[in-house]
């Protein structure tokens, strides 16, 4: 599903990724690790199509609307409620039975009671849960998750474990994380960036 050859990305004179070869098959779960600044987020942004490579080739076999991208920021409007944000994304992603799907995700990530609250009033963990709801809303074929455990308390992390467990083997996942041991039972491969 993802094939990269000699992939590189510079920001000005700073070389963040260089000469990366990568093959991710359908339904793989690849864990991407590495220290801060090693290019994990850049790799995910490249795969999402948000950045263009400055060297090499990258082929991602997924349509734009079939990619779920979890970034460092939740990519939601702070002055809209959780429900309004998900409704907007649901419309833009043409989610069938949108209201039911949104309700199910909000329940699953324990945000149903807070659905009418503005995101600006959310804690960091709640924002991350909402970001996960947004990422999963359209049931994507390819999931690009950048530090999905960031900000989550133990209950939230357990919810995410269960969600990833249900997706593993059915969807293709690239997960950049500093906690690779959490995903070790599910991972089909590991990419360590230096």
């Amino acid at each position, binding site marked *: 599903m993802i094939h990269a050859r000699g992939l590189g990305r510079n920001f000005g004179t700073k070389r963040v990724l260089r000469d990366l070869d990568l093959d991710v098959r359908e339904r793989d779960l690849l864990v991407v690790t590495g220290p801060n600044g090693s290019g994990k987020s850049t790799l995910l942004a490249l795969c*999402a*199509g*948000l*950045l*263009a490579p400055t060297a090499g080739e990258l082929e991602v076999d997924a*349509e*734009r*609307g079939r*990619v779920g*991208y979890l*970034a460092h*920021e*939740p*990519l*939601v*409007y*702070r*002055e*809209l409620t959780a429900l*309004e944000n998900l409704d*907007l*994304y649901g*419309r*833009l*992603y*043409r989610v069938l039975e949108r209201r039911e799907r949104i309700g199910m995700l909000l329940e699953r990530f324990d945000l149903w009671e807070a659905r009418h609250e*503005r995101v600006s009033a959310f804690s960091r963990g709640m924002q991350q849960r909402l970001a996960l709801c*947004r990422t999963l809303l359209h049931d994507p074929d390819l999931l690009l998750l950048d530090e999905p455990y960031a900000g989550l308390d133990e209950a939230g992390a357990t919810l995410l474990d269960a969600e990833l467990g249900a997706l593993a083997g059915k969807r293709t996942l690239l997960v950049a994380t500093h906690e690779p041991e959490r995903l070790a039972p599910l991972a089909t491969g590991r990419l360590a960036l230096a």
Partner: protein
Amino acid sequence: MNYLADVGALARKDLRLELRSRDTILSMTLFVVATLVVFSFSLPAGAGEEAAYGLLWVAILFTAILGLTRAFAAEREQRVLDGLVLAPCDRSAIWLGKAIAVFAFLALAEVVALPAFALFFEPVSWEVVAAVVLADLGLAAVGTLLAAMAAASRARELLLPLLLLPLAIPIVVGGVGASISDDPGRFLGFLALYDLIFAILSWASFEYVVTE
């Protein structure tokens, strides 16, 4: 139909955000009224209607810049534009939804500005109102595109006026002409043509502005 539904959802979102914060409309309205008050004191007695209308169009242009610098503030804050760009909708829908919201904010500011102008300077004719509406359409169209470009830059407050002012000169020429000319129809037609050309250009090029 999907395209119009996307545009509607995006424009409603912007109007809802503004109804909650009232940041943009309030600052635009206060700015344009304050500018007209200052102009009313700075214009020499007997300067004539030509000078007064010139100042009106300067005030409208700078008010538009003020509003446009905030146009993508909510998207910039949490990189929401990345989320919108990844959606399978036509990316020009993002531009059109935003341009509709910008037009609404400009129109609301001028609902206050034109009576204020009439109070301090000259009565406002229908030609002036028509010119302002057409100018707002042009400013919203081209300004939204440039605001998206500037939003990605750290120097956005400087970049937006630098990009917009040269492109807005035809709007000022058309607006002043429609306000003072004996043949305002010619200038209104010129403004309409400007709107059409720049709306098409902005609509077609937005995709390249928000992607690498």
